[in-house]
């Protein structure tokens, strides 16, 4: 085992996380996509997606989570989805849009909320000094 694997929580938590994190991600996307037919929506789906990544981070330590989802990817996807969202809503004023609004608006909101909250969590964890002392 590499030294990265030894960080984080115990073996039980890691195994359960490996099994469940994919389903949590899938559920977040489902909640975002069917928000117009059932309870849910882009915001709730985005928070569930962020919780899935935070789950990985709490169980395996921050190196593994940040290797899976780099900081540059986070920033680029937040910015791109914000621009697409702005375009859709502003295109509504002139009455035409090239996107299917029922799919794209929740997906963009999910990307902004999910990646943004994970970025906030990562920044706060990296900022706190006591974590650095402990490791």
């Amino acid at each position, binding site marked *: 085992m590499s030294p990265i694997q030894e960080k984080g929580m115990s073996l039980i938590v890691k195994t359960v996380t490996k099994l469940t994190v994919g389903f949590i991600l899938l559920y977040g996307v489902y909640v975002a996509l069917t928000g117009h037919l059932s309870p849910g929506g882009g915001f709730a789906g985005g928070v569930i997606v962020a919780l899935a990544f935070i789950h990985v981070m709490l169980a395996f330590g921050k190196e593994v989570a940040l290797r899976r989802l780099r900081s540059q990817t986070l920033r680029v996807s937040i910015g791109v989805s914000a621009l697409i969202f702005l375009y859709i809503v502003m295109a509504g004023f002139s009455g035409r849009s090239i996107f299917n609004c029922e799919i794209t608006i929740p997906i963009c909101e999910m990307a902004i909320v999910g990646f943004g909250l994970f970025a906030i969590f990562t920044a706060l964890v990296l900022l*706190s000094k006591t974590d650095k002392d402990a490791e």
Partner: protein
Amino acid sequence: MIEINLLLIFMIAGALIAVRVKDLLSSVIAVGAVGIALSLGFLILKAPDLAMMQLVVEILSLIILIRATIRKDIPFSMSGGWTFNTSATIVFLALFLAVAFFALKGMPVFGNALMRVSGAYITQSPALGAKNIVAAIMLNFRALDTLGEATVLFTAIVGVLAVARKIGHKKES
């Protein structure tokens, strides 16, 4: 409506405990209990959408508070005169209650909302081609509303990332 009243009493008790308790971890957990009770209240008032969102956001904020901020040594200021603080609290509370009394008298009874705008939504949404009325309201009438919400969150994210970045912080030796 007895459930709502019980939940409100529980939430007020949780908020008071969160303010008065000395230990920070207990305070954070009390705030979490208030949020969970709010989620239950949304569920009782038949808004599963909001209940789901409140539950998820509550869990996320609890994790962020416990994991990322609570271990830091937070200076806690108890300075200031006791009489001034108490009298200011009482004055502001009385002012708030007086204004709220006159403002709430003009509102419609709980459960009988005014249907001025909502009536227009119901009559006009079939012409828009959406799958149901909720989709029509959320993605057509109130898309700008969603844009504003996303803008608030985007600004908050940019602000936190700008304040909490690594570059620009002084290294302590």
